């Protein structure tokens, strides 16, 4: 655990000593506000809730999370520091976990900085704070899932642009597996059982549960399994690279 903490500290340090943190946070906050006020009609709806704010999070993450995750491994491979890191006395799991947690905490900070909008709705009217809290949790879990996908994609390539695009595509598909557009592809050559299974994988559907104010254990479990699956995939990719 101490090793993982050391990695987390190094990663966070490098976010904040480079412009990454500043640029990311500003862009995130500006876009989050723009989406909720202009597209979401935060004031026009005359309802004291944060639905206009949260409903755009998946789309915001779709572009911003790959931008954050693309450097995770691709940069280490490109600059050669991967060799340095992986010959230190640590397991690939510790490295993968440390880098992921650092980036996830960073996304948590970005979310935390949006708290003024939460105060605003409470000032404007009677807000359902339980529902807002569960939405925040759901949003953070969703961001974590996309980040874990990005971690794996970043390990696949030494080129950050490729990592970005791969993450974007994979995230997009996993977000929307519930839509007929995707399900129709499988229609006819997979049984209904499998199609239902694929539909249930959709990240957005699971996030919507949190937005309704329900924190169900199986929804939590879904996101945690999703994260663990992609982190495990990252470890596999890294180990595989070492034998090639």
């Amino acid at each position, binding site marked *: 655990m101490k090793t993982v903490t050391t990695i987390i500290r190094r990663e966070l340090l490098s976010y904040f*000593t480079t412009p990454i943190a500043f640029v990311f946070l500003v862009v995130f906050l500006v876009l989050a506000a723009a989406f909720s006020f202009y597209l979401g009609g935060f004031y026009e709806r005359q309802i004291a809730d944060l639905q206009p704010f949260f409903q755009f999070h998946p789309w915001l993450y779709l572009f911003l999370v790959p931008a954050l995750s693309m450097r995770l491994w691709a940069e280490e491979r490109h*600059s050669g520091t991967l*060799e*340095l890191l992986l010959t*230190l006395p*640590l397991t690939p799991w510790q490295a993968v976990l440390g880098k992921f947690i650092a980036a996830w905490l960073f996304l948590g900070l970005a979310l935390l900085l949006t708290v003024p909008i939460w105060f605003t709705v409470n000032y404007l009217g009677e807000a359902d704070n339980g529902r807002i809290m569960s939405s925040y949790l759901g949003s953070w879990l969703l961001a974590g899932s996309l980040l874990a996908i990005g971690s794996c994609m970043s390990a696949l390539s030494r080129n950050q642009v490729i990592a970005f695009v791969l993450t974007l595509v994979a995230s997009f598909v996993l977000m929307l597996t519930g839509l007929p557009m995707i399900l129709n592809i499988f229609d006819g050559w997979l049984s209904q059982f499998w199609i239902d299974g694929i539909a249930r994988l959709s990240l957005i559907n699971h996030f919507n549960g949190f937005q309704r104010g329900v924190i169900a254990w199986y929804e939590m479990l879904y996101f945690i399994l999703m994260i663990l699956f992609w982190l495990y995939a990252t470890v596999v990719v890294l180990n595989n690279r070492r034998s090639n």
Partner: protein
Amino acid sequence: MLEARSLYKSFGSIEAVKDLSFSLEKGTVLGFLGPNGAGKSTTMRMLTGFLTPSKGTALIQGYDVQADALKARRCLGYLPEGAPLYLEMTVQQFLLFIARIRNIPRAELTTRLGETLERLSLTDVAGQTIDTLSKGYRRRVGIAQALIHDPAVLILDEPTDGLDPNQKRDVRQLIRNMSDDKLIIVSTHILREVSALCNRVMIIAGGELKADNSPEGLLQTSRYYQAVTLRVDNPQPVATELSDLPEAAQVELKDHELTIFPRKGAKLLPLITNLAEKQQWNLQSLRLEEGRLDDVFRRVTTGAEQ
């Protein structure tokens, strides 16, 4: 201390390293030589456990670098090729990060860091971002990182690359000072470094071990070993005269210098000095060759005869 057991590595159809076995003990400074693409870095990556061998394995202090990776790596300091570093960190932040991962106790952290900075003359730049440092400084940060935990085995891939002559000398001195109680492997393409630094030399080419010897032993296989090189005013008649010596196998004139190669076991120097005195040659310089590593290197790696 370190043992390579039939290390074999192929990338697709390319065989990078073919069945390499050796064993090294404490006090050894091994010079690892080979032309570019000979498999030097691949071998080092397998020794450090970064690359998984296709066949075979390596042991550091008895620990298998694959099966017992963490234990093996704790005894190891490694400077990878090109000295990769986290450029956005300061020297101090970077070395503290390595020290923490290496589990150096908190109480010792400051002294250990200070010592390491001092040893590599990095104290003045400790607070600078690595990004802003020159190539020579970066290389030294890479070396500092490899020895901050005082490892028993040190593997350095081109440690003096990019350093100026003074810095090269300092790093060689540092390596020599540490060599008594450590095993140090240095890969280099600077041949003079090998005789200055190492007590054992391995040359690999095409993924195979072509020579494994002491620097002196290696020099003795050079055709220049015990040859005499001299410079005179009028080399042509002197050359003719020298080639009449029964002990001389061959005389070569190159860049106004005559090199006389001895027949096996013959001692040329006294004969030539006598002759020079008797014939009153106007000698400008005269030296006995110790053998030339570049000559050995070329012969061993290309398989060319003489």
